[in-house]
């Protein structure tokens, strides 16, 4: 189970390793990568459902500029997220932060699969105990 979660988290990381190359924000590739990951996950609030990475409106450009400034000043990802949430609320982030409310969301997939698996085990066990028809088994 733990390995499963590890693989899932790897998926998270792998999906962020999208090789993107943006206009001269940072020379340091690590900072550039952080920048790109962050702007992909911040909602453009003037738009209907786009990240500030994908949007061209002024607010998006302003927010990109602010995030770049904060990375430059050495702020952490959590501090930058906090900056945005203080001003715009949790809605500004596409990836819900892992707080009490959202923990349920992140656990939901595993809980549901678990629940489904248990139901399945019960059903299969029950069917295994029943007589199978004596029609000859056929090839797939």
């Amino acid at each position: 189970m733990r390995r499963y979660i590890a693989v899932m988290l790897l998926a998270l990381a792998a999906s962020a390793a999208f090789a993107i190359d943006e206009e001269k924000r940072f020379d340091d590739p690590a900072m550039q990568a952080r920048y790109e990951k962050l702007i992909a996950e911040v909602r453009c609030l003037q738009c209907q459902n786009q990240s500030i990475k994908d949007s061209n409106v002024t607010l998006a450009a302003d927010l990109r500029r602010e995030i770049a400034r904060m990375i430059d000043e050495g702020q952490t990802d959590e501090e930058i997220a906090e900056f945005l949430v203080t001003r715009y609320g949790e809605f500004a982030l596409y990836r819900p932060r892992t707080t009490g409310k959202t923990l349920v969301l992140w656990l939901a997939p595993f809980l549901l699969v678990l629940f489904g698996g248990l139901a399945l085990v019960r059903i299969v066990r029950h069917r295994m105990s029943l007589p199978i028809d004596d029609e000859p088994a056929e090839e797939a």
Partner: protein
Amino acid sequence: MNRFLWPLIIVAGLIVFLVMGLRHGDPRALPSPFIGKAAPEFELPTLKNPEVRIGKQNLLGQYSIVNVWATWCVMCRAEHGFLMDLAASRTIPIYGINWRDSRPDAIRWLDELGDPYIASAFDADGRVGIDWGVYGAPETFLVDPGGTVIYKHLGPLDADIWQREFVARMNSRGAGT
């Protein structure tokens, strides 16, 4: 209980939830995270007189409204008439934040249409706008004498909204306008 009733129960619950959701209001309206909290600090040059600076301290001591506007914003022009009326009635000081605009354009706009503001702060690069959580003009904040944000309205103001949302809130706090 008949276990085959569960789908029905779950769906009934879902429908009740959706009914509540429908009555909930515009999904695009973003409640301001500042409501009930201190208004953000800021300090900016005024629009008409760059040497003079205004900031949060100007708002303290009485109820005031902070109106975010720009010349490129169509709805701001729509609410301007009401703001002029409100300013003329002298019920509450109106401060402006001129957001992401061109200084000469903004000054000309106020000259042509009238200036309802005690003063407008000139937010050229939008940083103060971001600090106030502004994402679309016009936005109007109601700030109490202690500097706490009581309410934020997104979209143009009119007399109806003013009474219903702003005056009502001030009255319930004993402001007695």
